[in-house]
C-alpha cells in the first residue's frame, strides 16, 4: 500500500480553503479541515502569514482571516489542480 503523499501546495490550499470557509478561523477547526497536527499547522500558519496569504486577527484569541492574495492563490490552485487532473495527475 502506497502512502498518499500530500504536496506542500495542496496543504497550503487545504488550510486556505478552511480559513476562507469561516469568518474568523480558529486553529482547531483548521486542524480538522486540513488534517494536520497542531505543530505542523502552526508552522504552516506562520509561513502563510509571512507570505501574506493569511492575516492574524489582532486581539486575545488566535484567529485568522484569508487575505486577497490568499484568495487569489486558492483560485489559481483550483484552476491548475483541474489542469493537472486533465492530464491524469494530482498536484
Amino acid at each position, binding site marked *: 500500500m502506497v502512502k498518499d503523499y500530500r504536496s506542500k501546495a495542496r496543504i497550503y490550499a487545504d488550510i486556505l*480553503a478552511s480559513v476562507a470557509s469561516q469568518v474568523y478561523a480558529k486553529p482547531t477547526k483548521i486542524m480538522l479541515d486540513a488534517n494536520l497536527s497542531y505543530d505542523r499547522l502552526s508552522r504552516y500558519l506562520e509561513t502563510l502569514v509571512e507570505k501574506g496569504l493569511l492575516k492574524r486577527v489582532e486581539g486575545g484569541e488566535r484567529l485568522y482571516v484569508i487575505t486577497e492574495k490568499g484568495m487569489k492563490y486558492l483560485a*489559481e490552485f483550483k484552476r491548475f489542480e483541474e489542469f493537472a*487532473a486533465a492530464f*491524469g495527475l*494530482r498536484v
Partner: protein
Amino acid sequence: MTFAPALLRLDVLFESVSLAIGLAIASTALVAYRRVGSRTLLLLSLGFFITSFAMLFRVLIVAWALSELPWRGPLGGFYPISLIRLQEFVYSIVRLSGYLVFLYLYATYPLTRERIVTGLAPAGIGLIYSPLFEATAALILGYIVYQLSRVNRSGVSPYTGYVFLGFIMLLASHLLFLATPLSLLFYLAAHTLQMFSFLLLLASMLTVLLHGKRLQI
C-alpha cells in the same frame, strides 16, 4: 530520389507544429508551477520542454541539411546524411529523457491513488540504436496510457478524455516509427499522429483553462 527530401520537408513542418504546441503546454505548466508551487506542474513542464527541445534540435538540423541541397559535404554526399543520423540519435536520447520524466510523473503523482510499481525503470538503460529507442518510448507511453485509462474510467476529471486520446496517438506514432523500415508512409503517418496528439493535449489544456471550474466560496 526526390521523395525522401520532400517527405523530410513535410515532417519538418509537422514537427514544427508539434514543437509550438509542446512549448505552449510547457510554458503554461511552468506559469502554473510559479503561481502555486506544485512539483507535478514543474515536472509536467519539464517533460514537455525536453520533448520540445528535442523537436527544435531536429527541426533546425534537418532544415539546415535540406537547405544545403544538393548535398555536397567533405565526403561528397555522405556528410549531411551522417549528420542527420547523428541528429536522430541525439534526438532519440533527448526525447526519451522527456518520456522518462513523464514516466516518473505518472508513477509518482497519478490522479487515482493506487500506484503500480513497474519494471520499466531499467528500460532506459542499454539503448543503442533507434528502433530500440522507439520501442522503449512505446513501452513508457504504454504505461502512461494505462494510468490514464484508469483515471479516465474513474471519471474524476471530465477533461482527461483528450489527454488519454492524445497519449494513445503518441503511442501509436512511436509504433509507426518502428514500422518505418517497411514503408516511408509509416514515417509520415507517425509524424502526422504525433502532431495531432499534441493538438489534443493543447485542446485539453485550453478547455480546462477556459471552461474549468472556478473557485466558489
